[in-house]
């Protein structure tokens, strides 16, 4: 086992990793920007090193500063969390060259899955089902039109280097393919410095279902079932749950088996998540793979009882995974609401000082957060304030429990999306389980949705 882990992250995930390390008896080093000197991850780590000024580029993304901090504190491993440098193959490689273990998959895995085109090729070779689409990068508008015609409309154009929903365009007819290709490619070149595009069939009512993979360094790979992440706005997830109301035990077994087999073929190690698009017929297609711990990992932990972050650290240290697929049992239902510091109607980020704070608790409630009273939500970083997670025997009890917990959550001084969650959880589509990735869009456009949202805003202190 490692002696000292440096956590190259901030906020709730840094705290989550510190907690796991402490339970494993491993010392921790927090790194932080000058703006985060009073952050909880700095307080609860055994040591802390200031690595730069507030902008992420000069602190949490500053590879030389982070490696220097690891060097002067003699850390023997780095946990990158999610976001920031977590999927940066170069960072993983340089860390390993400095004899510091990168807690995550091998650099070549990050590289393979980090580019959407190479990931698609690798997924296909490994036997994962793909949406019909272009073979690799499209050379020009004419090729885009020909491929779109052969697979049928609607299609979606995607940037090879894109992510988080940026660099995508839906095209519904032949006449506009060329123009859409030109615009999307120019946008991608501007946003990511790479204008490469590919296209695939567009599914009208897709559900976002992802499979959690756990792989040790010795070729033993299992899955921990699915997470449903269809409640999203502009491809930013807001509510996640496990199990998915759309996934039957038979479908779970199939998705899990296909995923594990593919990971065995690729030679994957450590934690990973395969994101699929599930259509109305129950067919699923590979979207992308995330080579890190996910924000929404707690819902899987709550239904399987597997501590993913602790497991991740132990696997990186070379421990064999003792759990077999047959040992994995799914118990009840879990839901996570991402509580963001943002306006509940416009979704505009809302940094500022939290003047009053009281967290929900009680049976089946978990709050992963780095917030506290008098904590200032900073404008430099993302707006995730807390992950409110509930677990219950069944889905309807979990929804009731989440509503109860949301009602107890007091966050004063700034705006949060708690009213949005209250309205979303009360919506008939969510309650029935018959929702897809356009749920939020429809909710905000509907009269009942906006009425519920208004009422929730009034009722939130």
């Amino acid at each position: 086992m490692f002696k000292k882990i440096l956590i190259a992250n901030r906020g709730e995930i840094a705290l989550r990793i510190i907690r796991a390390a402490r339970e494993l008896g491993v010392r921790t080093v927090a790194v932080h920007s000058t703006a985060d000197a009073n952050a909880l991850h700095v307080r609860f780590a055994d040591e802390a090193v200031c690595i730069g000024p507030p902008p992420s580029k000069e602190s949490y993304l500053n590879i030389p500063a982070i490696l220097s901090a690891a060097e002067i504190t003699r850390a023997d491993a780095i946990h990158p969390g999610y976001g920031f440098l977590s999927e940066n193959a170069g960072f993983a490689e340089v860390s390993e060259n400095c004899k510091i273990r990168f807690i995550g998959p091998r650099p070549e895995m990050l590289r393979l899955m980090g580019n959407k085109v190479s990931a698609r090729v690798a997924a296909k070779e490994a036997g994962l089902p793909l949406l019909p689409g272009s073979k690799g990068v499209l050379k020009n508008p004419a090729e885009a039109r020909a491929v779109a015609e052969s697979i049928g409309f609607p299609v979606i154009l995607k940037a090879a280097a894109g992510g988080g929903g940026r660099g995508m365009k839906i095209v519904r007819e032949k006449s506009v393919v060329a123009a859409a290709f030109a615009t999307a490619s120019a946008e991608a070149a501007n946003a990511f410095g790479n204008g490469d595009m590919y296209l695939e069939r567009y599914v009208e009512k897709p559900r976002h279902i992802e499979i959690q993979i756990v792989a040790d360094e010795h070729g033993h790979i299992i899955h921990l079932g699915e997470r449903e992440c269809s409640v999203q706005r502009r491809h930013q997830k807001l509510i996640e749950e496990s199990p998915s109301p759309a996934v039957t035990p038979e479908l779970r077994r199939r998705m899990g088996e296909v995923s594990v087999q593919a990971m065995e073929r690729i030679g994957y190690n450590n934690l990973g998540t395969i994101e699929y698009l599930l259509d109305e017929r129950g067919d699923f297609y590979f979207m992308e793979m995330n080579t890190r711990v996910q924000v929404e990992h707690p819902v899987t932990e709550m239904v399987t009882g597997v501590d993913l972050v602790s497991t991740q650290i132990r696997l990186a240290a070379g421990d064999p995974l003792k759990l077999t697929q047959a040992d994995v049992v799914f118990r009840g239902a879990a839901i996570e609401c991402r509580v963001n510091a943002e306006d509940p109607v416009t979704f505009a980020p809302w940094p500022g000082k939290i003047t009053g704070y009281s967290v929900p608790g009680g049976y089946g409630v978990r709050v992963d957060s780095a917030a506290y009273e008098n904590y200032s939500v900073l404008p430099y970083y993302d707006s995730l304030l807390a992950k409110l997670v509930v677990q219950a025997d069944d889905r309807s009890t979990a929804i009731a429990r989440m509503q109860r917990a949301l009602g107890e959550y007091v966050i004063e001084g700034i705006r949060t999306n708690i009213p949005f969650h209250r309205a979303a959880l009360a919506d008939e589509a969510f309650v029935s389980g018959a929702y897809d990735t356009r749920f939020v869009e429809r909710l905000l456009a509907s009269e009942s949705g906006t009425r519920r949202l208004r009422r929730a805003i009034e009722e939130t202190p």
Partner: protein
Amino acid sequence: MGPRVSAPEPPPPPVTERPGILVTSPFVGTFYRAAGPDQPVLVELGSVVKKGQPICIIEAMKLMNEIESEDAGKVTEILAENGQPVEFGQALFRIEPL
């Protein structure tokens, strides 16, 4: 010895309240007062330094980085010890303009 553990309480104020300009570490690394183990220290307490004069070394990523004084003046305080790990923004010297 590791770097200091940053507690949420603010550090004691006197360091910044005395006269003079604080030279802070531009990055995380190890502080050295000389360019090498057999070399003389770059500045002593009371040394008068010119703008652009090398005053210490910060080792980071196996590289020795010369840190130059951004102001001219007299070194009135040396706030880090030779061989000590330093973090971004940590005070290293106080220089009083003449």
